[in-house]
């Protein structure tokens, strides 16, 4: 009753139980959830057979070459994807013209809910460019002669890129020495304007760009050459060339959402904050004008935390911002132990204080490690 399972290209053995199976057809990279076959067992005579499917080793299956996707095939996939996108938009009752990738993801998650833990194993519908690995077109003509002059190096894109970069470097140096000979040294603006807000490509990104495998030494060599180029003064073309290999780095403090101050009936400014540490959860309300009173679950902090270390933790955000006696705090905390509760309240207070404080000070608090949630250490046993 149970059809033999399909192998996924690699050698896999399944242990099947009658009652349900899901098979993966990994042919085109899209998971298809097959209908689970229900055993029509009725009454007390359900046979509980345990099958072990045939293990297919690599010898039986046709030699697994890298599957080459032709250009026509990819084009067809893209057309199918676009049509499928429009159908999906219709199904969801949205406008097909303005259906973005996020909408697609949400629709798929709604229509095919999956409980799998591995996010990459869940059903996806993405543009074929992202699914099929990029492959290169045939590098040689009908007569067998390669198009690119560096084909026989094996890594033609990489070496041609190095060649171009070094050519640019020599040009810039020549230009620079000419200017110096004529005593026309212009303003010394380096090619690389913002070394902090951006970073060099990582090796994977470069490989993706060149559609070629690189070694670590190749990558470091290229980056060194780029750094040499970017340290020289140059014009707009060189800047544009170098910026092609830079990716922007986000400023971390932007991740923190700062709530605006709220005001209660008497006009006092207050702000809420939440914090977690191990299993302790704390919710905190920090009032603008106060005398440094802290109430935890209705009890004063001196009674709630008899240990000095915990009270020092509570004091930390205020002391750091020089606002020790200026705020009143009310908090509710539950779970965890005494140190975890103190840490949770500290985090919640630091987050609440972000609303009272300038952006610079928010960044300082982040660099201090106060507004960052704590990731506990992993202690191995044995």
């Amino acid at each position, binding site marked *: 009753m149970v059809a033999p399972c399909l192998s996924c290209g690699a050698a896999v053995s399944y242990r099947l139980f009658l009652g349900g199976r899901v098979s993966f057809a990994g042919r085109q990279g899209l998971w298809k959830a097959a209908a689970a076959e229900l055993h029509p067992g009725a009454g007390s005579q359900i046979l509980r057979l345990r099958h072990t499917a045939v293990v297919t080793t690599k010898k039986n299956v046709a030699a697994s070459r890298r599957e080459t996707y032709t250009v026509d095939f990819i084009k067809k996939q893209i057309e199918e994807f676009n049509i499928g996108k429009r159908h999906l938009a219709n199904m969801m009752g949205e406008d097909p013209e303005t259906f973005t990738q996020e909408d697609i993801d949400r629709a798929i998650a709604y229509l095919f809910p999956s409980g799998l833990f591995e996010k990459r194993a869940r059903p996806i519908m993405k543009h074929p460019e992202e699914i099929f690995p990029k492959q290169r077109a045939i590098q040689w003509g009908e007569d067998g002669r390669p198009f690119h002059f560096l084909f026989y190096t094996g890594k033609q894109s990489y070496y041609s890129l190095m060649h171009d970069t070094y050519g640019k470097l020599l040009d810039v140096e020549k230009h620079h020495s000419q200017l110096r000979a004529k005593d026309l040294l212009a303003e010394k603006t380096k090619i690389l304007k913002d070394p902090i807000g951006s*970073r060099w490509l990582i090796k994977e990104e470069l490989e993706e760009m060149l559609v070629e495998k690189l070694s670590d030494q190749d990558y470091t060599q290229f980056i060194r050459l780029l750094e040499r180029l970017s340290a020289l003064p140059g014009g707009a073309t060189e800047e544009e060339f170098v910026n092609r290999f830079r990716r922007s780095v986000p400023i971390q403090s932007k991740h923190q959402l700062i709530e605006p101050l709220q005001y209660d009936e008497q006009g006092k400014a207050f702000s809420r904050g939440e914090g977690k540490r191990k299993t302790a959860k704390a919710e905190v309300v920090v009032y603008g004008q106060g005398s440094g009173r802290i109430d935890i679950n209705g009890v004063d902090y001196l009674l709630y935390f008899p240990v000095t270390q915990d009270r020092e933790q509570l004091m930390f955000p205020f*002391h*750091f911002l020089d606002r020790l006696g200026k705020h009143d705090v009310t908090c509710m905390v539950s779970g965890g132990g005494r140190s975890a509760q103190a840490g949770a309240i500290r985090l919640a207070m630091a987050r609440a204080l972000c609303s009272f404080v300038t952006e610079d000070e928010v960044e300082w608090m982040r660099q201090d*490690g*106060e507004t960052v949630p704590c990731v506990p250490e*992993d202690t191995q046993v044995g």
Partner: protein
Amino acid sequence: MAAPAVKAARGWSGSALGVRIAVFRFPGLTQVRWSRYGPEYKDPQTDKEYYRKSLAEQTEEEKYERELKKTQLIKAAPATKTSSVFEDPVISKFTNMMMKGGNKVLARSLMTQTLEAVKRKQFEKYHAASAEEQATIERNPYTIFHQALKNCEPVIGLVPILKGGHFYQVPVPLADRRRRFLAMKWMITECREKKHRRVLMPEKLSQELLEAFHNQGPVIKRKHDMHKMAEANRALAHYRWW
């Protein structure tokens, strides 16, 4: 210029944990505590003065460092670290080493009692001394503590090296952190073992600290013994290969 990889703190279901590279110390010592932060996470800077410096006072390097820090991921400050003026990293480390079974409350109270005992003893001496001597008596327990531990630090250490089937004690230069660790370890072991059972730890420890401050006492003797052994085994120094 480093290229920080853009990865968040890894959770349980992620791929590799943020593993610190195992430093080869001695065979048989492996790491048991693994940090769950990736290598791109930097330690937090709790010094208030660092942040309050105005733009005019900062050097070029500091300005660059500050800009760079804005894009870096930072770990959370641990529960023992605050920006308080009363916090001392040496005292914290010593308290942690004195701690048994995770009883930080007890260790910290012992530490405060020790410092109090040191201060009391010094004040007694101060009040009993004449005017000239009063100038020489140090009353700040923190300076006494730091100076005592510094006096106990060995300059050179011994390492067992296996050669020809025998273990030889080879003299070896010690890193700063190893020296500090040895000083603290010797102090604590001395106070735990060589005291009468009715004598409490703060009293014994304060006594040892004061003796070490004056370059006397059993811990200093142990340091000198270590130096003498190293001097005696000078011939084996070439067994060291690092």
